[in-house]
């Protein structure tokens, strides 16, 4: 599938739109929110994360019945550890590609909006105001803040994953290649590596499978799933509602036309639904197993 954000896309004709998305009301316009590369990155991230979480939990809670049963099924922890390491490598590669892209765009091509400004992932003063304003709105003390391209909780998700990958990755590799790391790390750091790896891993698992799932997918505004990370496109009406500041900025900058795209095709919606619900189901199962094992411990 070609990445449709690369070039400006003309507004689709009504016929095309009706064919592509018969359920959508006529003349509804869609905006491209995520590029294909970003969607692939998320797909690699959540696929490897699910496997890393499942295999990691089995090793962390290796006394639990489900872990032992599964281990017996696959002939011991060798298989479990293999998949854990394999996914770690894939995720590390994705991380490196991502960082390389950030550096290429931000440092070498001096692209504005990577490190600062409304489209950046870097936190700014507006995020603090939005957080306070959002909390005031929760309590009925003020209006709902107008969010930009990335809302403060989305930035937190991003940086939590970023920090998590550095911390979990480094401690994981330290254990994997312990004799090598011991050349420049003290021996007790290897003890610390497991504590850090498992605690940070638990935090990531608990956070993603409860907070991220609810904030992004399961809350009434998105229920049962926000498809934008799969299809890459958001309807104009929703864009206005969810990211009024970005929408207003796009219109003001006269850039709104460049991001108009057609409605996502039916197959993509169905595919996204299957993949997304599977991921959410696996995640919630792991959450239940984690909590029950944690309480039983």
């Amino acid at each position, binding site marked *: 599938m070609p990445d449709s954000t690369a070039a400006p896309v003309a507004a689709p004709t009504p016929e095309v739109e009706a064919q592509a998305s018969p359920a959508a009301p006529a003349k509804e316009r869609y905006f491209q929110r995520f590029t294909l590369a970003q969607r692939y990155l998320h797909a690699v991230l959540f696929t490897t994360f699910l496997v890393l979480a499942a295999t990691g939990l089995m*090793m962390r809670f290796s*006394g639990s019945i489900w872990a032992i049963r599964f281990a017996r099924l696959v002939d011991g922890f060798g298989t479990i550890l293999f998949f854990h390491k394999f996914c770690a490598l894939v995720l590390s590669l994705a991380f490196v590609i991502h960082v390389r892209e950030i550096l290429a765009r931000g440092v070498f091509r001096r692209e504005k909006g990577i490190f600062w400004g409304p489209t950046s992932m870097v936190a700014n003063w507006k995020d603090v105001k939005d957080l306070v304003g959002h909390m005031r709105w*929760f309590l009925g003390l003020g209006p709902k803040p107008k969010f930009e391209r990335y809302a403060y*909780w989305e930035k937190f998700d991003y940086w939590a994953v970023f920090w998590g990958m550095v911390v979990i990755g480094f401690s994981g590799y330290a254990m994997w290649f312990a004799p090598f790391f*011991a050349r420049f790390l003290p021996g007790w750091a290897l003890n610390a590596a497991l*504590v850090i790896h498992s*605690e940070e891993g638990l935090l990531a698992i608990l956070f993603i499978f409860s907070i991220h799932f*609810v904030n992004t997918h399961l809350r*009434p505004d998105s229920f049962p799933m926000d*498809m934008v990370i799969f299809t890459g496109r958001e309807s104009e009406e929703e864009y206005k509602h969810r990211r009024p500041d970005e929408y207003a900025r796009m219109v003001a900058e006269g850039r709104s036309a460049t991001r108009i795209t057609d409605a996502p095709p039916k197959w993509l919606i169905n595919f996204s639904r299957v993949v997304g619900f599977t991921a959410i189901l696996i995640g919630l199962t792991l959450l239940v197993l984690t909590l029950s094992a944690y309480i039983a411990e």
Partner: protein
Amino acid sequence: MPARPLYADVDCLSCHSDTTMQDANGKNVGVDANKFHAGVHGVLKCGDCHKDIHDYPHPDHPAKVQCESCHAGEASDLATSVHSNKSEHPCTSCHGNAHEIVTKTDPNSAVYPLNVPKTCGACHGNPEMAKKYHLPNVYALYIDSIHGFALGKEGLLVAANCTSCHGSHKILPHTDPQSRTNRANIASTCAGCHYGINEQYQQGVHGKAVAAGNKSAPVCTDCHTAHGIIEPTSADFRMQSTPICGSCHRDKFSTYRDTFHSQLGLLGGYVETARCWDCHQAHDVRPASDANSPIAPAHLVQTCGRCHAGANASFVQYQPHANARNRKLNPALYYIRLFMNLLLTSVLTFFTLHTVLWLIRSRFKGNGKLPGGKNA
């Protein structure tokens, strides 16, 4: 017909050679002449054992044969043993049909090494009997054990059978200090075959403690069990034995459980992680302060290096029993764990609250114009 002395077995066998012959009580009194003559008692005359029968017709109820009239040593051993009750454990209960007993080196003997487990198992494999005397059902355990396998499947005469450990006539309860299976005597009993292992064991802390009279120090059977002994290099043994060490060394077991070695080890499998004896040795266990110990500082690189190729002096500073919950013993680890726990709880607490408030607010937003899910 006038009575005449009966001594020659031919006289008796003229009647008793009918092997289906029964007495008034329905008890079989037939004798297979061929088997009798081939047996260890074949040179004897009937009257040598059946001493009260001199004439024909003989009494309806001849006296019980007294084996001890010849086998006095065995009889006196038996009298002090757990099998002293003669009516429950007559000699024939182990040695089989009195008229067909062969020498114990004969493969047909009920007490030939290969046949011993089956002979003992006639009673000790019976769950009813085990229940009655509060005995574990040892027969099944033994048959599946490495000894039972070596004897029964491999046909190794040197493999331990019941009598190798328990003796034969003088079997005493394990609570008796004289018993071969008394805790104090276990090591020497096993050493009957496993001589070399016992030499090592006696050098280690456990052997020395037992020798010094410490009743709680482990003997062979504490780790290997008595009847269900399995191959010590097998996955099953490796899986089951760490908690056995842990049943005494509770603090060490608890800290071991926190490590990667244990977390993966619990799942088992074809790749192995270090269990207690991989570092401490199984039989010649010595404290780290002993220069000959594998965990003595001078030997750590070598010991860890058995699994971790490239282990160096820094690597072996890793603490396989670190306690992240103990601030005094492992301060760095303690504060790292504390920090990680605080991070985890604070992030989750804040965002749980945030999400719950959000959900509540979303319910009371009135007539929401956008139910969501339009991205689809």
